């Protein structure tokens, strides 16, 4: 029986030496194929005595199994090696740069407007809008700013050419005409903010002839100056993301509110950096007051029944204070470097849950 064991040794050596799947298959066929050497030995079993067969049968079967296993193992090894080779050949330089789908940016003014909508929605304010080319009634007369009042001259108004009837259209000097349009078209209770573009003939580092304001208006029964303070304090805390804020209300004058006040917030300019909420200085952020009875009357509302407050502040200025721009003029230059630097990701949608900066 040395034949069988020699055969096993030879075949196993061949299997181990096989370098390709084809060569391995040839070895398999030569060994255990129909006409293979092992198959030939198996055929000799038929001529043996039962006693011999009892001894040789299991041996030959074991030989066939061993060879089958050896072929399978070698096949697996060869396949593994082939895959390794393929993968090695497929290597690329992953350090090459890729084209990303870069986001563009949202302008800081739009971002702040979205922040305002979000904050004031929580206090029940809708967002109202109005035309930018206005008439004198909505921009001045209905707001208790008579034709020759010095306050009217102080507005540095842009006018369009006088019409035959002597009236002039103008670019709204504040967003307050939206108050009038809202009161004329809607019954109290009213809570609105009106963000938008406004225009005055003025130009330096902190003034541009076009700028953005947000107006707020509340008309309800029983609203008083204390609510105005509460509302603005809530707004400032939410906008600047502060737990507490020291605010100062100073008596002032606006023709459309009575009483009127200007609003300051505590700040510091130490080291040339503006910090909101702490320090020794005050920074004016807007004007406010209780809606003047004459304005209510001009809008067909009964000032004996309803009271309300209005406030206004500069959106560009809010953006500058919060996000640290020092010059207003580039806001409206459309300079792409500035827009990319100061703009916001479109995914940075301000929400109360996610935060407002």
């Amino acid at each position: 029986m040395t034949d069988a064991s020699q055969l096993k040794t030879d075949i196993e050596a061949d299997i181990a030496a096989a370098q390709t799947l084809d060569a391995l298959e040839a070895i398999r066929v030569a060994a255990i194929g129909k006409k293979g050497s092992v198959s030939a030995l198996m055929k000799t079993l038929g001529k043996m005595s039962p006693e011999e067969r009892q001894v040789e049968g299991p041996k030959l079967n074991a030989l066939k199994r061993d060879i089958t296993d050896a072929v399978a193992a070698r096949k697996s090894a060869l396949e593994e090696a082939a895959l390794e080779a393929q993968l090695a050949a497929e290597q690329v330089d992953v350090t090459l740069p890729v084209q990303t789908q870069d986001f563009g940016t949202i302008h800081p003014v739009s971002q702040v407007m979205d922040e305002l909508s979000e904050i004031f929605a929580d206090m029940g304010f809708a967002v109202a809008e109005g035309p930018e080319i206005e008439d004198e009634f909505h921009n001045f007369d209905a707001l208790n700013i008579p034709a020759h009042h010095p306050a009217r001259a102080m507005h540095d108004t842009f006018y369009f050419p006088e019409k035959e009837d002597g009236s002039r259209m103008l670019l709204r000097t504040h967003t307050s005409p939206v108050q009038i349009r809202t009161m004329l078209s809607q019954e109290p209770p009213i809570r609105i903010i009106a963000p938008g573009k406004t225009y005055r003939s003025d130009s330096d580092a902190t003034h541009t002839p076009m700028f953005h304001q947000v107006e707020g208006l509340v008309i309800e029964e029983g609203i008083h100056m204390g609510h105005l303070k509460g509302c603005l304090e809530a707004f400032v805390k939410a906008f600047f993301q502060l737990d507490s804020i020291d605010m100062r209300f100073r008596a002032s004058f606006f023709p459309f509110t009575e009483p009127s006040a200007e609003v300051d917030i505590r700040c510091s300019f130490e080291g040339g950096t503006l910090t909101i909420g702490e320090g020794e200085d005050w920074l004016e952020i807007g004007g406010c007051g209780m809606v003047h009875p004459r304005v209510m009357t001009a809008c067909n509302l009964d000032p004996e029944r309803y009271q309300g407050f209005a406030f206004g502040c500069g959106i560009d200025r809010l953006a500058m204070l919060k996000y640290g721009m020092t010059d207003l003029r580039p806001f409206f230059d459309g300079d792409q470097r500035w827009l990319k630097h100061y703009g916001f990701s479109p995914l940075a949608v301000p929400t109360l849950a996610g935060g407002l900066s």
Partner: protein
Amino acid sequence: MKFTLDWLRSHLDTTASLDEICEALTASGLEVEGVEDPAAKFAAFTIAHVKQAVKHPDADKLRVCTVDTIDGEKQIVCGAPNARAGMTAVYAPVGAYVPGIDVTLTKAKIRGVESFGMLVSEREMQLSDEHDGIMDLDAGPAVGTPMADVLGLTDPVIDIAITPDRADCLGVRGIARELAAKGLGTLRPFTLPTIEGQGDAGRSIFIDLPDGKEDACRYFTGRLVRGVKNGPSPDWVQKRLNAIGSKPISALVDITNYVSFDLGRPLHVFDAAKLTGDIGARMAKAEEEVEALNEKTYTLTNEMTVIADQSGALGIAGVMGGMPSSVTESTTDVFIESAIFDPARTGHTGRGLAIDSDARYRFERGVDPDFIDAGLDIATQMVIDFCGGTPSEAVSAGTPPLRKHSVPFDPDHVRRLAGLDVAADEALSILKALGFTIDGAGAPYTVHVPEWRADIDGSADLVEEVMRIKGLDAVPTVPLPRPNGVAKATLSLAQKRIIALRRRLAGLGLNEAVTYAFIKEADAALFGEDTQTLANAISSDMTTMRPSLLPGLLSAAQRTLDKGHGPVRLFEIGRVFAGETPDAQPLEAALIIAGGAAKDWQSGAAEPSVFAAKAAALAALEAAGAPTQKLQTYGAVTGADMPSAYHPGQSGDLRLGPKNTLARFGMIHPRLAAAFGLSAPVAMAEIFPENLPKPKAAGPTRSALDDLPLQPVERDFAFLVEEAVPAETLLRALKGADKKAITDVAVFDRYAGPGVPEAHVSLAVRVTLQPVGASFTDEALEAISAKIVAAAQKSAGAQLRA
């Protein structure tokens, strides 16, 4: 409005500090804009005695001084010719900031000799222009005494902003009254002088105004003072005027200015020798000329009021007096005028002539109509005191336009409107302190408004008075009432659409710009004919309201590209202006893609294309909720004319139905590109969100998803179509061939060239068919294919390519 602390104290008996006064002013509505405290400004500068002054060893014009200073004996090198032993000078130590030369002193070596500090001149202290030598003071003050004390520079100057309603605070006394009401002291009593007039004024007063213009001047009074001697006014007057930046001129002129600043009562003085006959107020004649005190000649209109005598106009009423009749050093008889002029007309005149004057500032805001005679008497007394002379009896015309206004007032209104709990007694005593008088035993009281408070109209104004004086800090901070639960949504459909559109465009890689809504007239003209142009533009680049957002973006792109910071990807959302009515100012969006993207190793360079603009416009419309599946494209290929801003053959409209354009896209017209100086290729689009249809009202619930267990089948076709046939025509025909089975049609190749007839293209399309219920049989698929081919032939003249 400027005044000094000492001046204020002449009306207000107070122990309050400068800081307390400033705080109270700001809180009550008289915002302090600045305080200049000379004592603080000059704190570093002290008296020194020069013990010795010898010539510098190496410089003829320099002296080496040995000086006794607050810091001990110092060696100081000095270039002043008057530096000498024994003089009393002002010493600036090392470390001091010298304002006149804008230098902080350091230890120095001057031509080899060490110098510790400086002896200063008046100019270096910004006290005058004097710089011929160092300050040479009278002997007496001890070494170390502050310079400010020796020179009497101890009176801080306070500058406050006065809101247009508070004409009463345009005089120092009004400010003092305010502070007294605020509890910072007591208003000193004020006694009007009694003038014993002797003899007549030599002339009568006239008010000669046409019907309807009587308000121009309701009262005019005056008095002659004979035998005056005009010279410099007393030191204390000059000092106060100087401190607030009003240059002293002569006693007579200074008196009018002083009364104006002190009591808010403008006056004018004439040299009586230069007057002809009666004097008074009348309307100017058209084109009448007046040579004003500022030495300019003004041409007036017949809407302006003048002070005139029989010879002609003397001055512009309420605005500025005239030069020819003005007083001089040699004036002996002075005519003092006190009158009241219409605020609106005065303001209009001042603006029309571009004259800002202290008189206009006060008349325009409304002077006290009950203080016209008083002003004349006070000025008369000052003239007698400063210049001597004998006053005549006063002459006048008209009657002072007293308002005699009263307001019914319930002190509880303070609580209701201001939210401030103030006892009725306290509220009423605040009003009294401000000069109001009160009648009645209980609410509503009758509150009589003092004549100097023309701003007080109704009860709300009185609430403000009480709140101002009480302080806004006393108003409690109360949260706005809010309903229980979570806040409701507040944004409108249109607003939500804009927010989505904005964030979608930014998501496409475009940067949002905000550009000026007024542009160059020439730029606007390229986009429309009916443009709105301002009557008073601030610059020639900002004259005309934009008829489109594109010009602003194109200008911005050109600036960015010229700086080499391209390519440009911008968008803007804003109003454009087709007219002046609210409807003619729609909110639009626009985008531009200018300049190719940087070359990439994978894809090469990507140039802006009409299809990139179309894709962006569609993405924006979809984000805004437009039914993009229903849109049709119009362009040259469909026979539509495009606006001249666009390349006529490479631009299109996305419309819902034949007329409603939701967006426009395309390449820029070469002529427009040239007009904006753009050489890079530019694709652009405009989106008209206001044209979007309202979606059908639907709740949050969605319809159930169709159950599609069977696999869709794809079939490819290649059609030959004439070039002039819009692809959309073919695609619509294919989709309509079997609406039930066909779920999608996509173009996957477009080819023209060898093998395709002249003026034709080959369009390869993949049609997706969705079986429902049962799989397609071969016969069914063949039937659908036949319908597809027939529809293509019928609608688009397309032939199945062999």
